[in-house]
């Protein structure tokens, strides 16, 4: 969990039928975080080096260069935390 404390500022569950989870990483570490994620996850698409569409262990998500990520179809915040933990450890 120390990894989460080090890198994650907030996890927001969005409103709307989509029930997405937005992960807001610590802004001053965003470059390090994005680099780590890009190393571990598979890049499906990169849009202008701003948005990266990625997959990791069957989970599709998007990471923004500004240090934010959007996860879909996950059951809850715990699942989001577990994926982030794996991505950033």
């Amino acid at each position: 969990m120390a990894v989460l404390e080090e890198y994650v500022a907030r996890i927001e569950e969005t409103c709307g039928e989509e029930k997405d989870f937005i992960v807001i990483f610590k802004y001053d570490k965003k470059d390090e975080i994005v680099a780590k994620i890009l190393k571990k996850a598979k890049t499906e698409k990169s849009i202008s080096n701003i948005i990266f569409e990625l997959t990791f262990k069957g989970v599709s998500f998007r990471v923004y260069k500004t240090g934010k990520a959007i996860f879909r179809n996950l059951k809850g915040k715990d699942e989001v935390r577990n994926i982030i933990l794996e991505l950033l450890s």
Partner: protein
Amino acid sequence: MMLDPYQIRDDFPILKRKINNYPLIYFDNAATSQKPKQVIDTIRNYYENHNANVHRAVHTLSQEASQLYEEAHEETAKFIHARSMEEIVFVRGTTEAINLVAYAWGLHNLEKNDEILVSLMEHHSNIVPWEILAKLRKCNVTYTEVTAEGSLNYEDLTSKISNKTKIVCVSHVSNVTGIVNDVRKIAQITHEHDALLLVDGAQSVPHIPVDVKDLDVDFLAFSGHKMLGPTGIGALYGKSEILEKMEPFQGGGEMIKEVSFNPATKRCNISWNTLPWKFEAGTPNICGGIGLMEAIKYLSNIGMENVKEHEETLTDYAMKGLQECTNVKVYGSKDVSLKCGIIPFSVEGLSSHDIALFLDNFGIMVRSGFHCAQPLHQLFKLSSSARASFYIYNIREEINRFIEVLGEIEQI
């Protein structure tokens, strides 16, 4: 006199910020507005020079704080053309104002099988309190339809209102589509059935001239933070003859005239304070009220007709720009004369949150989701929407940039 947004922008320190190295473009004004330095300075000045608890103290600071706090009520009354400050109750915001009416009026005036008529375009804050109340009083909540354009269906309202209807609850301006409801007409229909009309003014009072006497509303609820004021302060307007008859909302200090122990009954006899204090239990948000007063003075100096005209011009300009974006869909009425500066939209193939995150990357702040109006999204068959909303400090150049970035999103 036209409003000069470039001059106004100088008053808003936050607009000098950069987000992700881009100049901040703030298009989330329907959620909350930014604050001018005049309001920020007033709050600072209050705490540095006048801070004390209000009423029933004889010392100088309390007299000053009381004077300012009462002036804030008077200024708010003047702003919406209430008859006097007795008709202005300070609350935390629109939500608390509506809850105040639901509990202080509804609990004591609704009976089994009575009806509460609510529109389907309402913010959750004008739905949930009525559903809770209906459960408590075993009465019914009936919903009036909204047209495909997002306007209130007046025929449906007329057909659903009956002698069982005790209160009609509608928003003046929809927080999703920006559509302006014809409140005067609704008031007429409501009063023909001897019902009361509560209007959610959260999106109207900050943006268009509002005259409660002319509109003939019984209650009007609005928030300070959406109209340049601080958070945690808002107002409930109520016709004084209705407020007089109502029971208090909460009990405590300030809202009572006297609490005396009766040795015979071994209970306390309580008499209520005069209006509006009867509804302001406990130490109020004094600084919030004073901050709101400054915000109102700021808006009054500009003139609400000018505010309305500026937003109409911006909305028209933005709508025309959005029409050029092939994958962007705008919801609700396209007729700018029928709406305030709120534009709900989507980009084909993207969720509203993706749109908001992409725009955020370029320093553009818009809201995404249901905007606390899930029933209206259900009606429009939308899983969620992105929403751009404008205010006095927004300029055409920002809209140009917004459209430009949306054009980039379309390439995704």
